[in-house]
């Protein structure tokens, strides 16, 4: 277990170093940082001074190391466009994205698993077939169209729910939450559905196909041959085996929810980091792009690590060293 964890952690660190290199290269080579930071009126001396100040005259590895050291401390420099520290801008907007992503993830997992198991067990029923057909439409439907459709239905036509922003927010220390006010919760509904729907469809289809695969296995036949109730066969024997392959992919899907939030946040003008990122691309605001990349990589790698460990916890075949002699 320890060796496994250490190995996975090491791999994660390597991935982060590679991503860091990409982010750093963006800083260093996409556009000229000096150009971006100084206005039209500048002298050769200004440029030289800034170059030294930014450390651009030092060798590449040294610069990379300094960049990493800054990144670990949360220092990503100053936004070209807003002229403020990137870390401050991101910290201000992160709670909005995390709340949206968390609610969507819960929706996606709960309904994805539920419907996936349902459609696998009632394989030939009309309800399951209808859900499967709808899910195919769901997979083909671009996220932003779902958002627009929901806005049209519930904001424009019915006028039930707000179409943009996150409503009233409450400050809990530095964390600004929308979960504690009625308007905040109402504002969350449409974006959360929009963001969760696609992931839910994927999880559902995956759970279904894995469960059908498991239901074909010998040990399921054997469980039936032992006269166990269908309920026990499905939920005790099949579901647990289904979980193993599903957990990995679900973990990755949940990670990508944070990335897909970019689209949803744009549609609903949700003031999170995704909207910030899109704007930074439009204005080629490299420090924000780089910081966002690093942030999302840390989250992804973290989720991957958790998923691996979870996988390990569920599958007894991976318990190295335990030879069946227990208690």
């Amino acid at each position: 277990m320890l060796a496994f964890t250490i190995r996975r952690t090491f791999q994660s660190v390597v991935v982060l170093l590679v991503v860091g290199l990409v982010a750093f290269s963006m800083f260093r080579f996409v556009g000229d940082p000096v150009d971006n930071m100084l206005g039209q009126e500048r002298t050769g001396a200004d440029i030289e001074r800034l170059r030294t100040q930014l450390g651009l005259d030092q060798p590449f590895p040294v610069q990379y190391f300094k960049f990493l050291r800054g990144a670990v401390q949360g220092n990503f420099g100053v936004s070209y466009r807003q002229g403020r520290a990137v870390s401050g801008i991101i910290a201000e907007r992160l709670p909005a994205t995390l709340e949206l992503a968390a609610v969507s993830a819960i929706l996606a997992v709960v309904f994805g698993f539920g419907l996936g198991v349902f459609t696998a067990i009632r394989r030939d029923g009309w309800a399951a077939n209808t859900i499967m057909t709808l899910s195919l439409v769901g997979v083909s439907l671009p996220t932003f169209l779902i958002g627009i459709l929901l806005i049209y239905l519930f904001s424009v036509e019915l006028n039930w729910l707000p179409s943009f922003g996150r409503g009233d927010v409450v400050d809990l220390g530095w964390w600004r939450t929308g979960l504690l006010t009625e308007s905040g919760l109402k504002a969350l509904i449409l974006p959360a559905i929009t963001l969760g729907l696609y992931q839910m469809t994927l999880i559902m289809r995956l759970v279904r196909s894995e469960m059908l695969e498991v239901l074909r296995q010998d040990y399921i036949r054997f469980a039936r041959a032992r006269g166990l109730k269908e309920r026990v066969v499905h939920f005790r024997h099949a579901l647990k085996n289904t979980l193993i392959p599903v957990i990995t992919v679900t973990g990755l899907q949940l990670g990508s929810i944070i990335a897909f939030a970019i689209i949803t946040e744009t549609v609903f003008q949700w003031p999170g980091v995704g909207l910030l990122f899109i704007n930074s691309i439009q204005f080629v605001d490299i420090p924000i792009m780089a910081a966002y990349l690093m942030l999302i990589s840390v989250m992804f790698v973290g989720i991957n690590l958790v998923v691996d460990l979870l996988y390990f916890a569920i599958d007894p075949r991976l318990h190295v060293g335990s030879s069946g002699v227990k208690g």
Partner: protein
Amino acid sequence: MAADVLSVRNLRVEIPLRNEVLCPVDGVSFNIPAGEILGVVGESGAGKSMTGNAVIGLLDRPAHIAGGEIWLNGQRIDNLPKEAMRRLRGKQIGMVFQDPLTSLNPLLPIGEQLRETILEHLPVTKPQAAARAIAALEEVGIPAAARRIDSYPHEFSGGMRQRVVIALALCAEPSLVIADEPTTALDVSVQAQIIALLKRLCRERGTAVMLVTHDMGVIAETSDSVAVMYAGRLCELGPVREVMTHPAHPYTIGLMASTPLAAKGQKRLNQIPGAMPRLDNLPTACAFHPRCPQVQDRCSVEPGPDLEACGGRAACWFANGAGS
């Protein structure tokens, strides 16, 4: 007849496909008395496993029983409702599958799988079930059963796992056990042990066994009687000694000649020319006639005689000892 644990009458299984209906089991009849072992042999695809699955009510859709009757301890079971059939499985009919590596749930400790089966079928408390589970493991010869009870399947060798599977099949003391190629996936060195174990347990408890295999050697060692299947039909049925020494049906004769055990003394094994026909392309009348060394005109026009009706051993017009 009353002593028969299992009685299969004229069983027919059909698989409806897009534009035809396949018939992997057709007109099969046999009985197994208590404490006896019936060996069912044939090439792969002959319908042996399908017959076993039909008896225990586990045919995969769209396959279904399309005709005939199955009686278990005087109760007709082929038309039972799903739930009643489910209660019967494990309680009155146990089943042992071919591959012990895949028939145990890898994520549940074996003790867990034993206890859930016992609790499902027997009126016992949880501690009693736990005790019974250990006893069941001891009975099939798992050393240090009490300590191994919480081990996962992957912590056992193939032979040991098959012992666990047998313990699972027998833990609710069924009156019939269907063993579907129980030794095929095992090392040769372990095969004999498993067969001996199965035989001993069933003799002790008076359990009837339907032993499906393609290995004539296994049948010779264990069975009381033997049923030979070819292309979904029964071609010969009789006491094992008689069938082995005096096979009547031309197919059985060919099969014996190609078995090392029966062919002792011969320099080389015989083989039956050709291959078993595919189900969607069965020959007319007697399915064996294109490969039969004793084929006559009648064979391609008229199916062989009905085993039951003529009271004979072999479904062949020209069987050894059966005149026409």
